[in-house]
């Protein structure tokens, strides 16, 4: 894979992004009651914008409650956006705003998008054999004649590294890593362009995580897949994602190519996240390393910049004015009044004592 910084559009690749999310918001009403009393509103997504170029992996990171899963569901159509555009570059129709398209068009476009979830156990019906599980999207969309289904499932299982002999087994006979492979096979059944993977490896053991990530990389190369990779583990995102979108309390706080961002973050929250990640070879913890405070409630977020109560660089303006997502460097944006002017630490481990990395 070419490094994202030097990535040029390949021959035949359209310069348009595969997916463009523009100013999307999603509000949930909480509280209130049957008498129509005004409850509070949770802005799960607040003016979210980012792009997913063709054929690469974009990581969507943040802590629980930041809206990353809501974003994934909104793209997939499980939730409808309250505002903004979600433009998908359909191979036949060109760019289509799926947030405002009619249901027939939306259905057509969505055949090119698939989702993979965190827990393979809860996404596989225990009473269906693998062949039925993997073939289900083909059957529902009436894409293949009955006779062609078993050969196609065998092919899909082989692509994800499972023996077609397993076809008539049930999910309980498989390990967690194998189940996640079945989920991948099912996602591939429709030949999607975009795969939205929501924490696909979080529920797996350490040694199986690496196998699954390698598989996803191989499949990406073979099928020219584009991934939107929703994750909380920044080490995995660093390895896997070419570009990264960082969210905090429903807002995008920073976007850009992963490696430059992790080396020199522009937003204090990105820096705080990177600093919190436990790392090998950094030596033992001394003193305090974690940022102050907790993620505030999304129902009652702080005024101005959401991060200001925890930000070591907060100024009076941060408590009153919401910063805009500004372009700070080519391809890099940050939602901070002082982005580019702050002495934010790089993620590289500071060598303490002797070098300890294996």
């Amino acid at each position, binding site marked *: 894979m070419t490094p994202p910084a030097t990535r040029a559009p390949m021959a035949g690749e359209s310069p348009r992004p595969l997916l463009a999310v523009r100013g999307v918001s999603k509000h949930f009403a909480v509280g209130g009651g049957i008498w129509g009393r005004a409850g509070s509103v949770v802005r799960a997504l607040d003016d979210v914008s980012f792009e997913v170029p063709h054929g690469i992996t974009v990581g969507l990171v943040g802590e629980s409650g930041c809206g990353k899963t809501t974003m994934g569901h909104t793209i997939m159509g499980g939730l409808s956006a309250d505002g903004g555009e979600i433009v998908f570059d359909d191979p036949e129709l060109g760019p289509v705003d799926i947030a405002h398209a009619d249901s027939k068009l939306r259905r057509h476009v969505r055949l090119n998008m698939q989702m993979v979830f965190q827990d393979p156990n809860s996404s596989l019906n225990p009473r269906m054999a693998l062949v039925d599980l993997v073939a289900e999207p083909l059957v529902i969309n009436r894409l293949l004649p009955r006779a062609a289904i078993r050969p196609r499932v065998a092919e899909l299982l082989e692509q994800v590294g499972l023996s077609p002999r397993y076809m008539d087994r049930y999910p309980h006979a498989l390990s967690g890593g194998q189940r996640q492979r079945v989920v991948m096979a099912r996602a591939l059944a429709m030949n999607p362009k975009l795969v939205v993977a929501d924490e696909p490896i979080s529920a797996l053991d350490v040694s199986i995580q690496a196998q699954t990530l390698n598989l996803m990389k191989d499949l990406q190369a073979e099928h020219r897949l584009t991934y939107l990779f929703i994750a909380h583990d920044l080490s995995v995102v660093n390895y896997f994602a070419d570009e990264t979108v960082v969210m905090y309390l429903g807002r995008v706080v920073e976007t850009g190519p992963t490696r430059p961002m992790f080396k020199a973050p522009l937003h204090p929250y990105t820096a705080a*996240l990177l600093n919190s990640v436990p790392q090998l*070879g950094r030596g*033992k913890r*001394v003193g305090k390393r974690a940022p102050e405070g907790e993620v505030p409630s999304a129902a009652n977020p702080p005024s101005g910049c959401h991060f200001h109560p925890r930000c070591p660089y907060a100024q009076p303006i941060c408590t009153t004015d919401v910063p805009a997502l500004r372009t700070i460097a080519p391809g890099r944006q940050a939602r901070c009044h002082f982005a580019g002017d702050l002495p934010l630490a790089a993620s590289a481990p500071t060598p303490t004592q002797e070098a300890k990395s294996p």
Partner: protein
Amino acid sequence: MQQAQSSPLIAVDDLVVEFHTEGGVVRAVNGVSFAIPRGGTLALIGESGCGKSVTSLALLNLVRPPGRITGGTITYTDAEGRALQTTDWKPNSERMRKFRGADVAMIFQEPMTSFDPLFTVGEQIVETLHAHLPHIGRGKARDIAIEMLRKVRLPNPETLVDRYPHQLSGGMRQRVMIAMALCCGPRLLIADEPTTALDVTTESQILDLLRQLQGEMEMAVLFITHDLAVASEIANEIAVMYLGYVVESGATDDVLGNPSHPYTRALLASIPKLDDEPGGRLNAVRGMVPTPDEMPSGCPFHTRCDAFMPGLCDRRMPRLYPCGDGHQARCFLVDPELERLRP
């Protein structure tokens, strides 16, 4: 007192825990030995099913039927310097109950399942206190509870003490659980994946807190985790487990900086690191952990090992060979007389 300084706080020697199931006897813990010095931190590392949690439950004699401790000893040195064999005590005995909570406390991965949702945080801490100090008055117990909440750096402990668990965030609940575990002043804290369910900034805060409290209370910690990076930041010593065996142990810097067992090496190579250059493939460990009923013969790791020597590793079980000061690995490659062993 002289003796007390030299002997470890808790010493596990050749511990065996077996589960008698319909499919036969499964040895979840197989001859595990380690010692934790006063105030020290040992991390038990391994993937699911390696026996790390069962080992920690065995320390408290909490292994439930069909599981049973069938071999080995656990020796605890109490504050007066007496060496006590906790494995001699019956799981339900008064002595064992006193030992749990007062001498050794435990915190778990998911704080929500460890609380009773019907009682306030304060009532639950008071209940723990009363179990070990029955003569303490209610007012005094409440004061201690508030003091403990302050100690784990929770804001406004006077109001928090009357909150219910569901009113707290995940990080706050984990702090309350730590407060509850520490309220009787244990000398060993067993922390079973205490940060796995938490967000990364919260995880970092809890790790900071544990280190600070450990220093303040002169408490030893047995830290159980699957995360090598977390272990590297918190532990003095590490024991890596695989299928019920300790495969490598030693000082953290030695084990992670100079891994001698192929499993430790494979684990270290398979995790993505924050300072990795992106691209390329991860060096995944081949295959998967065998299920306990299909335990491999010989070395338990030979089915996935890159250095597998046919005729040796699948026939004979390697012992723990020393490979440095206090550093040992269960692998024939470390045996200085390897050439004579080769078939």
